[in-house]
């Protein structure tokens, strides 16, 4: 009996360690990526709103050529902005169109984040379930042998 129990416990533990925990780690990593994307777009939105507020037409920036070597660049007309819409495409927008697009994008990202959060929660619940099962398996024999325990 005990050896069977030991085997089962061992199997449960292995299951947790080999499947559930890596799954959890992966899901968290994916969710973090989506968080980063969300941050990028919200920064962009703030910048565009800033430009609009100050009616900036010309822009002087420093462009990174690689390995932190910068060169001056000038943007004569800031009315047109090209935004990355995925799959390697960049669409030419005006400011207001760009803002609209960005808000749509942010909604989509939020929905993705929610999905990932639910997935992570379910994996965590499964891990807890298996741990409880292991604990039960261990406690029940103990309870039988140790009569002091009464629930």
């Amino acid at each position, binding site marked *: 009996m005990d050896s069977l129990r030991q085997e089962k416990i061992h199997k449960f533990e292995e299951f947790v360690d080999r499947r559930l925990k890596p799954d959890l780690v992966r899901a968290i990593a994916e969710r973090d990526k989506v968080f980063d994307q969300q941050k990028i*777009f919200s920064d962009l939105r703030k910048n565009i709103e800033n430009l609009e507020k100050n009616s900036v037409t010309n*822009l002087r920036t420093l462009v990174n050529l*690689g390995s932190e070597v910068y060169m001056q660049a000038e*943007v004569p007309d800031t009315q*047109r*902005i090209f*935004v990355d819409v995925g799959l390697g495409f960049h669409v030419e927008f005006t400011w207001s169109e760009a803002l609209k697009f960005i808000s749509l994008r942010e909604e989509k990202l939020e929905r993705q984040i929610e999905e990932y959060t639910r997935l992570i929660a379910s994996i965590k619940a499964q891990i807890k379930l298996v741990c409880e099962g292991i604990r039960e398996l261990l406690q029940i024999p103990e309870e039988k042998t140790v009569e002091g325990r009464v629930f």
Partner: protein
Amino acid sequence: MGKPEMKGTVTSLSSVFPPEEVQKAAKMVEGKLSEKQSEMNQLKEFIADNTSLINLVQKLPDELHHDIMVPFGKAAFFPGRLIHTNEFLVLLGENYYADRTAKQTVEILKRRGKSLMSKVDALKAEMQDLKAEASFFDSTASEVADDLVEIREYEEDNSPERVSQSGPVELESPSVAEADNKVSASEDDEYARLMLRLEELEKEELAAEDDGENDEDEDEDANANATETETDGDEDEDELTEAAFHGKKDEGYSSLDHNQRYLESQPRKQLQQSKGKDPMNEEMSTKYNHQDLTNQLACTGLTAEPVTKGNYGGEIPHGRIVHQDTKMLNPPVNASVPSGKKPVQTPKSEFDSSKAFTGSIIEHTENLEKKLPEQKTTSSQASDSKPSKPMSRFKMQRK
């Protein structure tokens, strides 16, 4: 070589080096090797980026303006143009920037490339050391699997000890395996042992002066040895590759030709040392006894020395063993493997130890009995090899 009483021991390799440990050590080395490999790849990427940037910087000043898409954050672009095409803002580190022209920027980038190349070279040297270690482990593992047996014979007289082995490689391999396992432990002991040895050497030098041989050398050697003890790990290798050991500074120690045979006996001595300081003294004296002053000088730390160096070389090299892929195994093994070979070595006189440590390479052909030619080559190699082994300095620093 007279034939005084011969003592001998037969040890099965597998009993000395458990196969699992050897395999573990081999895996450890492989893991480190792969780490270094990935670092190397990364460095190569950096170098490639640097070169392409140099090309770009050289081409940009050809035009007054360049039409480009200026990035705005990570997900948006503005159409615009590059202006002031000869002015570059370069990051020097620590939030310090410098405005430079194209030519000056290219110079900066070239200097960066040079430092990257030197890092790559250092990494290559490390990887080679690791590979040598790995090969040692593999050979040890195969030897253990083949149930090879170590046979050691000792002569009970003042002539240099001769140790014969059934498998010369065996000595090294055990030390390698053990060295890896015990490097950390032995390093601490090594210092203590070194100090003891230094004291002994001093005494021996005083005694040696009476002999009128190589007094000067001894002093030098003693000093050199003190500093070079770290490189002692090489001693063991000497047997197998005299040249290899030269590089290592063990030279000071007793490079006696006879000592080469010693390598095997040294492991015992080293073991003794691990046991305690007293054994070390015995070992030192015994080792030196075998070696005439001249021999020691001649051998200067090359392969033969492992005997004397083994005492502390073994300990010090533990840390180095990793780098020294070759035969360092002996010293560590000696320390870790308790062998009761001490009694054999006690009869030796103590002078030799002082001479063995002479750091300088002095070839005295007077007393060299067997391996004169070998020693000479090794000594010359020793002098040459020093500069070529940057790793030893690291090891010294670590120690």
